[in-house]
Every structure is written in structure tokens, then in C-alpha cells.
């Protein structure tokens, strides 16, 4: 800013600058477009990375504490939060009894994973977990019987539709394995922006039952669905989602259930550690983005030097008419700066458009709601770029002063 004030002080370059831009509009447009594309790519890349990071973390927001059998926290997190198929050991009935009966536990929900319907994961859990995950349903009601189910917001099934889950997920799913059982969709969750939007949620008792396992209740049980589950009739769960009345209580539970029989983890913590590992990558991306932009601008400024050679006769005429050297310098520099500013502004718009398009594509592929907006990091990136290239633009401006007026006038 102060550089601009210093260079342009007392110089009314406006009318001549406008004339120059008008006369050279085609080449000016090409130069500005080149800068815009490089700025747009850089801005889009940074905003997209942040959007994906925040989107994946937001998907884990409702998963306070996950208790699973000892193993990989990442595998268990991918299975529970992102519903990625995984072979994990089960939490047994005795452990479930400890979790369920713990005075600090306000919500404990088993998650039974592994079945699917037409590509959509079918997850067995409790109605209380449904309410915790998504709040009030968008349509219908929660399941109240073993043959009822609730669909995620993106499941293309209407209320009343009937589904027979296949055993397994993907190509290996066995369609006829659960023949004779059917669940009727009685409710639909609102959009959560997580892979659970593609899931069909059924009572956990149904999943256990169709697999020929005890259903979590004592034999002859005629009570309502859901907890409390009987430890002796509990067939095991890959993971349990657990909540406490406070963050301190949840950390206390984590400490208590991190032992030889169970691992207890916060999916948010696992994600934050993964994101921290990628922190260096983010910095490298930012540096690469700036470097690309500076390289493109250097190319544009080199082109500008050729242009000043082309308009050398006019500049020489100006000098011959008595224009001071500083005026010609200011005119050339402000021409370059105009291209840089126009390119940067257009690049921000392009970056915004690119991020919106890529976010939509990622959301469609992963079901993780990615909302990328331009934030301070992008504006800082562009501000840094403009400052650096405004300095670089001093070079072609200075070179115009070295040209011989008489030679240029003769053409």
C-alpha cells in the first residue's frame, strides 16, 4: 500500500492507464486470466483441504466416546463414524454390563454393523442413539418393533418401503442370507452431513436375531426394544457409543475403559491427531500454491517486458513531450499492478466456484458434508501474493526507464 502511495504520489496516471488498458485489452485480459487461474487453483486447494478436514471432524461430533475391543482406534473409528466395513473383535456381555451399569453413563448404544441393502449399510442400534445422532426425525417415527427401520436422509426409499438386508457389504454381500426377514421404513432422519445419511437403521435386536444370535434380552422377554440388555444374552457388539453427563465424566469413562479388555477413544481426538500429522502437508501445499502463483506472475511480468518494448514508442513520445521519468515508471508499474489485482480478484471468484464444485463432488462420493468457504487463510494467501508480485512488478517498470528515448522514437 505504502509502496503504491510512494510510486503514484503526485502522478495522475489514471487517464493514460485507462487508455493503455483499452488499447491493449486483449493481451491484458489474457495476462489477468493467467493470474486468475493460478490464484484460483491455490485458493481452491487451501479452502478445499480445510473444508474436508472440518467436514470429516464434524461427522465425528456426535460420537462422544467409542468403546471397542482392543485393536486399532482408526479402524474402529472408520467403522463407527464413517460406516466403513471392518473386521473388529466384539465387546462381550460382561463388559457391556459394566458400561451399561456405570453411574456416569447417560447413553450407551451398541452398534451392530456388517449388513447392507442395495449398497446402503444396515446398522443395528437403539432408538435413543437415533435421537442423539440426528435429533427429531424429519419424517415418520423411530422404530418401535423388530420389523421396523429408519432411513437416513439420502436413502432413496419412501416411508412404508420394505427392505431385506443382505449379509455383508459391497460385492461380497450375500443377498439371500437373511431371506424371510423384512423391515418396513417407518421414519427418516434429517440430514446429518455424515455417512449415516446413507444408512438404514434397525433395532439392534433384529440384527442379532437374523444372525441366529441371542437378542440381548433374557429368553421369553416381551418388554420394549432397547436397553437395558442382559449381559448373559448379549451376543457382543463391535463398538458402543457412550455418553456421560459432562466432558470430565466422559474422560473419566475413557480412563476407566482403557484396559486389557477394552479400548475407549474419542473419535475427535483420533481425527485431530491425524490432522496434526497432515499439518506439514498443509504448509507444503500453501508454499506450493504461492510458488505456482509467483511463477505464473513472473511469466506474465516477462510478457509485460515484451509489451513495454511494443509500446516503447508511445512511452518515448511521452518522455519527449516532457513527462518525467517517474511518470513513465508509475504508469508501467500501475499497469502491471492493475493486471495483478484484477487477476487476483477474479482468482478469488474462480477459487470459490472451484471449491463449491469440488465440495459437492466429495460430498456425493463420501456422504461427508464438505462446505468450503473462503476464509482468512485464503485472503492472507492472496494478500501475500499481491504484495510479492507488486514488488516484482517494479522490475519491468524500472527497465522501461533504461530504454533510450531517441532510439524508441525512431522506432
Amino acid at each position, binding site marked *: 500500500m505504502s509502496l503504491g502511495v510512494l510510486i503514484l504520489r503526485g502522478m495522475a496516471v489514471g487517464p493514460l492507464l485507462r487508455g493503455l488498458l483499452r488499447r491493449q485489452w486483449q493481451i491484458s485480459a489474457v495476462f489477468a486470466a493467467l493470474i486468475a487461474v493460478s490464484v484460483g487453483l491455490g485458493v481452491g486447494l487451501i479452502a478445499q483441504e480445510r473444508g474436508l*478436514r*472440518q*467436514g470429516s*471432524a*464434524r461427522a*465425528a*461430533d456426535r460420537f462422544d466416546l467409542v468403546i471397542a475391543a482392543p485393536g486399532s482406534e482408526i479402524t474402529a473409528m472408520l467403522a463407527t463414524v464413517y460406516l466403513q466395513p471392518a473386521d473388529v473383535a466384539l465387546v462381550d456381555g460382561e463388559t457391556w454390563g459394566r458400561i451399561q451399569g456405570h453411574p456416569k453413563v447417560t447413553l450407551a448404544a451398541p452398534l451392530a454393523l456388517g449388513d447392507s441393502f442395495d449398497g446402503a449399510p444396515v446398522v443395528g442400534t437403539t432408538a435413543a442413539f437415533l435421537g442423539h445422532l440426528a435429533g427429531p426425525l424429519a419424517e415418520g417415527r423411530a422404530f418401535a418393533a423388530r420389523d421396523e427401520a429408519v432411513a437416513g436422509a439420502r436413502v432413496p426409499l419412501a416411508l412404508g418401503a420394505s427392505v431385506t438386508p443382505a449379509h455383508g457389504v459391497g460385492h461380497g454381500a450375500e443377498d439371500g442370507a437373511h431371506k424371510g426377514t423384512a423391515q418396513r421404513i417407518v421414519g427418516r432422519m434429517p440430514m446429518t452431513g455424515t455417512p449415516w445419511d446413507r444408512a438404514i437403521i434397525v433395532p439392534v435386536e433384529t440384527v442379532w436375531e437374523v444372525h441366529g444370535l441371542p437378542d440381548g434380552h433374557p429368553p421369553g422377554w416381551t418388554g420394549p426394544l432397547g436397553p437395558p440388555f442382559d449381559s448373559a444374552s448379549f451376543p457382543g457388539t463391535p463398538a458402543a457409543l457412550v455418553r456421560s453427563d459432562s*466432558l*470430565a465424566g*466422559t*474422560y*473419566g469413562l475413557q*480412563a*476407566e475403559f*482403557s*484396559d486389557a479388555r477394552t479400548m475407549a477413544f*474419542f473419535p*475427535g*481426538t483420533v*481425527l*485431530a*491427531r491425524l490432522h*496434526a500429522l497432515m499439518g506439514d502437508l498443509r504448509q507444503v501445499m500453501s508454499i506450493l500454491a504461492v510458488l505456482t502463483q509467483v511463477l505464473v506472475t513472473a511469466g506474465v511480468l516477462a510478457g509485460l517486458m515484451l509489451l513495454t518494448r511494443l509500446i516503447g514508442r508511445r512511452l518515448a513520445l511521452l518522455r519527449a513531450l516532457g513527462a518525467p521519468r517517474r511518470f513513465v515508471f508509475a504508469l508501467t508499474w500501475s499497469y502491471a499492478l492493475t493486471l495483478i489485482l484484477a487477476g487476483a480478484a477474479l482468482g478469488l471468484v474462480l477459487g470459490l466456484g472451484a471449491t463449491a464444485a469440488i465440495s459437492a463432488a466429495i460430498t456425493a462420493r463420501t456422504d461427508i458434508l464438505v462446505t468450503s468457504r473462503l476464509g482468512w487463510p485464503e485472503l492472507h494467501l492472496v494478500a501475500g501474493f499481491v504484495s510479492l508480485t507488486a514488488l516484482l512488478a517494479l522490475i519491468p517498470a524500472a527497465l522501461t526507464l533504461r530504454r533510450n528515448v531517441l532510439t524508441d522514437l525512431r522506432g
Partner: protein
Amino acid sequence: MTRPLLALALASLALPALAEEDHHAARVGAVEALHAWAAATTGPEALVFVEFANAGDTPARLTGAETDLADTATLVGFAMVDGAGRYLPLEAVEIPAKGRLTLAPEAVALQLTGLRAPLVAGAEVEVSWRIDGQALPMHVQIEPEGATQHGHAGHSH
């Protein structure tokens, strides 16, 4: 004659190891604290981490710590709020009976604000944990800036 000499020699070899362990461990009641550490910083804030083991039959209550290093020392817990990680204040956390509580990055930590001097890598400072109303003073090892674990990580005492 040679046996007592040999025993003495072996004991003298073991002494530095014992001293080191004493330096990095502290105990109050049934609770032992191991390897307190923080990352070096010149900023106004720092997080202190440690590992507690409770050998008792009842849970112990960690309510915070006192230190001359900073204006305030607050027990905090990491939580994801709308896709962003934050440390939120905690009143107390239980160390389970016959169990462990690990204060670590992106988990429970002691947050120091208004640091009175920079934390320099390699230096040692002191904090006094408050457990069940009792003070548990111990040394905190300052690890290099950006460290994510203490220098003895993976080393079992």
C-alpha cells in the same frame, strides 16, 4: 571379598537409573505420576501432560495443579465443537481405581496461561498436581517445540 565388591559396583551402576526415575516420578497416596512434560514455547500459553497410575481400590480425583510458571493453571479437556478442536475447562477428572489416566495432546491437559518466562527445551520446571486435595509436586521436562510426546515415550518404568 570379591562378591561384596561386585555388588557395590553393580549398585553404583544402578544408582543413576534410580535417580532418573525419582526425578521423573512422584507419588501421593496410591497415585503415582510419571513423566510430566510440556513442549517448549515462547508464547503466553502451554499445555502440560503427565501419566497417572492409581494402585488404590478407590478412584482418585485430579482437580488441577499449582505452579509459579504462569498466571493460571487450568485442567482442560479436548473436544470437537462444530468440526474444530478446542480445549474446554474441566472441574476434575477421575483416575480410576487400579487404572491409569494419561494427560496427552488432544486429550486432558493442564493449560498454563500467562506464562512468566519462555519454556526452553531441555529445561525442567515444577508443577504441583492436586489429587484428592493433596499436593503432588513434580518436575516437568520441557521437550522441543512442537513435540507430541515426552522423550521417554515407549520407555517402560
